[in-house]
């Protein structure tokens, strides 16, 4: 944690990458900076006009001249107002656009990731990337970056004006700079260290807090309240230590700027005053100098305050880029074809697959299906049934061997084209918020209501939908429909996508008998005219399929036509025998 938090990306690399996102808006950025420059310069007018009033008009007792200067000042203010408004608005527009781009990019990139990425990364963390981290980065762009520019302009501007007014006095005032630079450097090194350590403690603290909230049952079950509190409090204490360290550094540094500022004014008193006495300098210049010096140290203080924001934003951008730099595991190897259609032939040819390292889940797996045939896969828990589905839909990449569709290798088919031809029905049905209608036409958004109703009728889901208060327009909330009904809904959803290949992970015992009967009917209806692969949990399913694959620890034990397997009297035969035995015992009773 400590290691990869620290030196994965260098700060300036990150900064440059953030800046790259400004490129599409470079002309807007240029305009914003120009406006900023104008505002900074106009803001310098005050002390200079004061000087003019004192030296040129007050001295001469010229009331008219004072009126004129007041008029000039007013117009400066008006322009400054307009420019500043434009600049603020423009900068926000740019910041929002960059945030929009970045957020869309992160979101799109997440959608490019394969399932193994989602297996590894908790959802909460990914949400933080898309939502919060991008938000923080925006803050840095709009307030942080711009303020740095405006502070810099102000600093340079004041320096130039002072130099113009009296270069000797300026040089004398410069004596405080080495001290200021040294103090700033000392502060920066220490503050950065404290902020970094603080960040690590904060993230540790937050993840511990989150863990305890999510696992509060377990904490209470094991009477861990006191112990966990002690641990939390000690991490919290560590954080407080770093917090107080930051406070202390700020408490030293910020007043030191004030001190240097006063020192510089003292210089003006002494050297400037002396030269005035010798008539080498005008009074107005001294006044302007004092006013400029008071303004001069504001940006420096400002920059130090912004330091914190920028550090946090750096951490966020680091996490965003880390995500964006995660390579797509299954890149689009071939371009999508417009009218891609499969016949439905499927062949697994010596397929090897492992989720991790070389712990193979599928070992040299081969089988083939003709278009329109149905296959039941049977096997114990962990034998690799679901893995076959994951490989078929190219959710994961297979190590060795090949999967052929209509004789074409899976590598030569665009993965999105392929998935459009396959419908997947899983045991745990995930439904999205929105109406029933939206959920059914997930894979085919243009489908009309009538078509959907006829599909629903075919898979026996029409009945329960008609009984809902808003029928197909019913918004789905938790607990509205039972798990059996969810299953039926997922059938309709699968058929609405009009697939050539249907993959079905049969639901286990979570439904009552009536729903089970409906589900069986639905399955029969769905598999009509489609190549279908069913992970079978019920004997009744086995009676309807053309082919059977018996799987053990990732290897094929038996594969063939159902009838042939029965004649071979192998394992499948044994499975069916027990069914018959049971039926007989029922009859005898």
């Amino acid at each position: 944690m400590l290691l990869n938090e620290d030196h994965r990306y260098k700060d300036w690399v990150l900064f440059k990458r953030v800046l790259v996102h400004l490129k599409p808006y470079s002309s807007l950025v240029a305009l914003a900076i120009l406006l900023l420059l104008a505002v900074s310069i106009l803001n310098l007018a005050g002390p200079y006009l004061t000087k003019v009033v004192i030296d040129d008009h007050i001295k001469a007792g010229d009331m008219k001249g004072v009126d004129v200067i007041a008029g000039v000042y007013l117009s400066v203010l008006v322009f400054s107002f307009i420019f500043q408004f434009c600049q603020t608005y423009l900068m926000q527009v740019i910041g929002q656009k960059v945030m929009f781009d970045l957020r869309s990019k992160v979101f799109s990139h997440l959608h490019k990731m394969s399932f193994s990425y989602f297996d590894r990364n908790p959802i909460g963390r990914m949400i933080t990337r898309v939502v919060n981290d991008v938000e923080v980065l925006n803050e840095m762009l709009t307030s942080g970056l711009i303020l740095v520019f405006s502070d810099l302009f102000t600093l340079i501007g004041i320096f130039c004006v002072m130099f113009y007014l009296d270069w000797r006095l300026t040089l004398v005032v410069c004596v405080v700079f080495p001290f200021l630079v040294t103090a700033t450097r000392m502060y920066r090194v220490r503050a950065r260290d404290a902020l970094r350590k603080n960040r690590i403690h904060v993230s540790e603290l937050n993840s511990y807090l989150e863990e305890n909230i999510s696992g509060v049952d377990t904490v209470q079950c094991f009477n861990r309240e006191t112990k966990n509190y002690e641990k939390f409090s000690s991490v919290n204490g560590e954080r407080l230590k770093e917090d107080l360290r930051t406070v202390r550094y700020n408490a030293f540094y910020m007043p030191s700027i004030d001190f240097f500022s006063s020192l510089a004014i003292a210089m003006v008193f002494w050297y400037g005053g002396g030269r005035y006495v010798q008539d080498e300098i005008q009074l107005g210049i001294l006044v302007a100098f004092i006013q400029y010096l008071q303004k001069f140290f504001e940006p420096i203080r400002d920059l130090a305050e912004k330091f914190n924001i920028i550090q946090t934003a750096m951490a966020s951008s680091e996490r965003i880029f880390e995500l964006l730099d995660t390579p797509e595991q299954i890149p689009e190897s071939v371009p999508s074809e417009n009218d891609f259609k499969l016949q439905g032939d499927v062949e697994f040819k010596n397929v090897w697959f492992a989720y991790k390292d070389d712990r193979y889940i599928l070992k040299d797996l081969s089988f083939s299906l003709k278009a329109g045939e149905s296959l039941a896969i049977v096997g114990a828990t962990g034998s690799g049934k679901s893995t076959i589905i994951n490989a078929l839909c190219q959710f994961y990449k297979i190590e060795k061997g090949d999967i052929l569709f209509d004789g074409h290798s899976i590598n030569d088919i665009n993965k999105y084209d392929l998935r459009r031809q396959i419908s997947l029905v899983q045991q745990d049905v995930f439904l999205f918020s929105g109406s029933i209608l939206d959920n059914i036409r997930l894979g085919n958004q243009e489908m009309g209501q009538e078509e959907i109703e006829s599909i629903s009728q075919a898979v026996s889901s029409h009945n329960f939908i008609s009984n809902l208060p808003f029928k197909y327009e019913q918004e789905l909330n938790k607990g509205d429909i039972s798990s059996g009904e969810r299953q039926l809904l997922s059938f309709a959803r699968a058929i609405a996508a009009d697939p050539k290949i249907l993959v079905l992970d049969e639901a286990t015992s979570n439904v009552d008998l009536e729903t089970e009967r409906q589900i069986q009917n639905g399955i029969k209806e769905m598999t009509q005219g489609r190549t279908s692969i069913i992970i079978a949990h019920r004997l009744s399913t086995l009676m309807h399929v053309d082919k059977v694959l018996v799987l053990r620890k990732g290897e094929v034990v038996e594969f063939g036509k159902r009838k042939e397997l029965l004649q071979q009297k192998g394992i499948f035969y044994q499975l069916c025998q027990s069914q018959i035995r049971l039926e007989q015992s029922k009859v005898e009773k």
Partner: protein
Amino acid sequence: MNNLKAFFPYVRKYRREFLFGIVALIIADCMTLVVPWLIKEFIDILPQKPAVEQLLKYVLFLFLISLVLVVGRYGWRKYMFGLSRKIEFDILNDLFSHLLSLDRLWYQKQKTGDLMSRATNDLRAVREFFGLGILILIDAAFVIVMAVTMMIWINVELALKVFIPLPVVSILFFYFVKEIGKRHVAVQEHLSKITEHVQENLSGIRVLHAFVQEENEKNKFKKLNQEYIQKNLRVTQVFGVFTPTMVFAIGVASMISLWMGGRAVIANDITLGSFVAFNGYLMLLSWPMMGIGYVFNLTQKGLVGMTRVNEVFFAKPSIIDNGGDFTPTGKGDLKISGIRFKYPNELQDALKEINLTIPCGQTLGIVGVIGSGKTTLARLLLRFYDPVSGDIWIDGKSIQEIPLKGLRDYIGYVSQEPFLFSTSIRNNIALGRGNASDSEIEKNVEIAGMTSDLESFPDHLETMIGEKGVTLSGGQKQRIALARALFKKPSLLILDDSFSNLDSEMEEELLLKLKTHFKDTTKIIISHRLSTILNADNIIVMEDGSISEQGNHSQLVKSGGVYASLFRSQELAREMEIIL
């Protein structure tokens, strides 16, 4: 106001620091106010051609003032900001401890993300209110009063003229802050919409990818995002006018000061030095003017934060620990009599009149479809909820009268999706008790069938789990959770579908080991897979919150009811597990 009051004790604890901070602040402010006056004196004396010593006197004076100023500023930063950090530390500690005391009924209504944001963002708002907010308020009030007094003292007429635009600033401020706040709420609401969208997308990502909905979802997201920008820009519209307006108003004030002041100097109403000092005081005013608005903003956020933090603090657990010193021995029976339970906000009872006796050392099997009340029953035993009516008796004592700690030590509960902490495997297993010998842990690891798995991990028992370490399979998690529960040496072991990710071979092995090593432990086994409970002494079938069938396996199969048909529908699965 009550919300604010709840935080007083935290402040009171650090009242000395608070006092120091305020004193330091006032000292610093006084010094700041002296500087323009010093400049006035300096400028007024210059035309009289002072000697070098006289000039040096001013320099020295300024130097001294700066020193005091530095000390003052250092003081208020250290004390006020330090104080707010310490308050945050205390509140966060208390919040954590309070969160751990709340019960499931409360947690069911919460979202983790929301609780997190209360403990982080809202608490930060509270901190900023107590640190920055109070500081700026005092600072601004003091400086405004003093600076205005000085300006009036220099020249009343000039001061009145200069102050003309200033009330506009305050009025605008209140309007702007309100408007910004309103528009900001819209932004926040939209942001949570985006969060929800992303959350749903990621939860259902497998379905979305299977249905090739990537492009559609991206477009939907883009639209949401676009709206978000619009709402953000609406804030900017106000904000963009706001800051320049402030600068403008103060600018106009200094313009008037320059204009009228300049004329006054010429008319000999005030000295040049007073004119400069007047400007200096006006400059000092510009920050507090904005500061007042900032305080308003901080206060608003702080109060919202306090309300939200307090919602957690004011929540009371509905499960009351009645204390006492009764420790169940595990020698008596477990009796459930007439239990009824209803979840809040649900129409139907989750449990209806459950009556059950589990003799000590026996095994009870529970089956039933999802939502039939199996897990609810287990949670009532743990007192995650209290029943609406009826009672549960352990060793002849109502569980209401058993201290929570004792009750939870008595029960070992393993759920289907156990929660493991991101620490070492050892710490996860030894969760229930502090002092753990290696041999004891290893024994439980062995019983839970994790020995060979552990050997394949890089650091064996010390291997870290989660983000920082290995990712465990569902089966491995379930077995570590089993080892963790067994390590407590519970008298009652509840397995809530906790073998669902294991193959039947492993499951059978585990059941056998449990039987030999934990012979005297009363066991409740909830399972979807009937093979798990085949040998239980007593099996109940739950339907809609009540017991519909009861008996041992052969009795239930013979009776030909729900259990029998369930048994039949699992025939294939079972045969497969046996044959394959």
